[in-house]
């Protein structure tokens, strides 16, 4: 207000804004994307986002790949919770093909998906801590994310880009070691999460840094197409797991935590609460799986021989199994023409698969609804007028994953 009235001394520099390139490779962006910030001192006047640095044309690639080969593409969307993406893709295929999965498969999937959600939120929340200057929490919980990755490893052999499961179920039953590891996780993790929570939840410095920054109202969040924890932090209780249950989520008891202000602190709290809820779902799923006895406990895939790869021991010894193996891998089995939209609750929100098949072996068109890409456009509105250091926390508390952003 007063700037215009101040008479600057002769020869002094006029008031200007500074342009700052944040990224594409900056430690604080936690991924490859660029933000061009226009700054007035330390305040942000405007921002412009440039994305696409790791665009890999998945949608185009998918048009030349049979269904199974697309699972590996979904791994690389939100790589902090790839099993959710894998399951989401398989659910899409199952919807198109009309494959019905047995209850035990659903529960196994729920178990894995909730573990993935925990690891996703754990990264996000601890990174928010790092950007606020608290490195300890991050280093401490990484050790426990490792427990989750060990479970993945036991289930599918991979850790980060899991390529887990098949159309109709899993490639093999969970081993005893896998269940032991899940037990170990359920035993050890609550204590760690509680400690992690204590480090931040009522920490004066952390609360001061995050409360009231990067806030968005429920109306604006909905208009911007927010989903997942970011929308719930603004106070809207929309959760795909509850609204459009898939994989038997309706059999589980859990709450949807919501925030009120949609600021960085609420986003942190919502993710934190969701980890507790996920933990409870994992426990419930584990109990339900233990209830299957005898032959039922051996069920780990649907009876869908046209789409589910035969066991390797048969492929090596039986002619029919070998033929089917090739037919499925080459996409020679009949795939009905159709148009499917299937959404799952990913780590960041509604991860949607829009699949059009014209009867060919590969999708005619596959579109990923990537929650990250959709809510990142709100970044300018979220950060306008805030300090640059708050904008950094806003970026990490939105949980922007470059893989999902660019696809």
């Amino acid at each position, binding site marked *: 207000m007063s700037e215009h009235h101040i008479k600057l001394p002769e020869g002094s520099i006029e008031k200007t804004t500074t342009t700052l390139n944040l990224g594409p490779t900056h430690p604080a962006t936690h991924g490859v994307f660029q933000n061009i910030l226009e700054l007035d001192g330390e305040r942000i006047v405007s921002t412009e986002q440039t994305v696409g640095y790791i665009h890999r044309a998945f949608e185009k690639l998918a*048009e030349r790949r049979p269904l199974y080969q697309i699972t590996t593409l979904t791994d690389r969307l939100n790589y902090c919770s790839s099993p959710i993406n894998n399951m989401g893709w398989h659910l899409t295929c199952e919807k198109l093909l009309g494959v019905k999965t047995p209850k035990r498969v659903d529960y196994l999937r729920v178990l894995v998906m909730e573990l993935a959600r925990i690891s996703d939120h754990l990264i996000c929340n601890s990174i928010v801590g790092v950007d606020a200057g608290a490195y300890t929490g991050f280093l401490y919980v990484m050790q426990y994310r490792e427990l989750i990755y060990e479970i993945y490893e036991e289930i599918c052999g991979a850790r980060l880009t899991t390529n887990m499961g098949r159309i109709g179920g899993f490639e093999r039953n969970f081993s005893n070691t896998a269940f032991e590891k899940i037990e170990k996780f359920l035993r050890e993790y609550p204590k760690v999460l509680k400690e992690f929570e204590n480090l931040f939840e009522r920490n004066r410095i952390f609360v001061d840094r995050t409360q009231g920054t990067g806030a968005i109202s429920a109306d604006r969040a909905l208009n911007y197409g927010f989903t997942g924890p970011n929308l719930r932090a603004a106070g809207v209780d929309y959760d795909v797991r509850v609204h459009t249950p898939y994989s038997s989520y309706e059999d589980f008891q859990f709450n949807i935590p919501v925030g009120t202000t949609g600021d960085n602190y609420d986003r942190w709290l919502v993710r934190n609460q969701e980890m507790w809820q996920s933990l409870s779902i994992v426990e419930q799923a584990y109990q339900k799986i233990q209830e299957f006895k005898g032959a039922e406990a051996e069920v780990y895939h649907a009876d869908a021989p046209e789409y589910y790869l035969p066991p390797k021991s048969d492929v090596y010894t039986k002619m029919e199994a070998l033929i089917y193996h090739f037919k499925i891998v080459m996409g020679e089995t009949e795939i009905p023409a159709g*148009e499917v*939209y299937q959404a799952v609750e990913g780590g960041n929100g509604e991860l949607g698969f829009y699949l059009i098949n014209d009867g060919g072996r590969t999708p005619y068109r596959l579109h990923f609804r990537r929650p990250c*890409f*959709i809510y990142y456009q709100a970044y300018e509105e979220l950060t306008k007028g805030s300090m640059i250091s708050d904008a950094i926390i806003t970026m990490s508390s939105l949980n922007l994953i470059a893989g999902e952003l660019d696809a």
Partner: protein
Amino acid sequence: MAITNEHIKQRLIEKFSDQVSGFEEPYGMLTFEAPKEINLKVLNYLYDDEELKFRFMTDLTAVHYPNQTGRELAVVYHLHNLADNVRIRFKVFTDISQPDVYTTTGLFSAANWMERETYDFFGVNFVGHPNLKRVLNVEEMDYFPLRKEFPLEDQTRIDKDDEMFGRG
């Protein structure tokens, strides 16, 4: 009480009579199309109506059908009524030689980047968009890569027969 697909269909026909067409329900999701000139009218109606309340844009993308002369590009909107938890799919078709479709950014802020992405890959020109430029691809690119005339593999290769690998 949740609104049914049949009811939504009736409401749309009441309002737009024969301009809305192609009603289908693939896998339970009501799908319909309208001429591209009235896409905003339809979306506004779906948004403002006190009963329909389709106020959440889930997804916006396009599909290229090179064989449908005059309606090669389909712009597909996925809308969600969060209160009643109903989803619908709405399509408009456009000629590829003049792919002008009105922007929905006035209604949904979320449409901004989604339309930029659709422009980027299919070349749909969203009329009235505040910042219609490429979002994922490099700005110098002068073609729209998700159109079907751009095959994935090198077409000069003769060792790979299309009939054996992928779409023929």
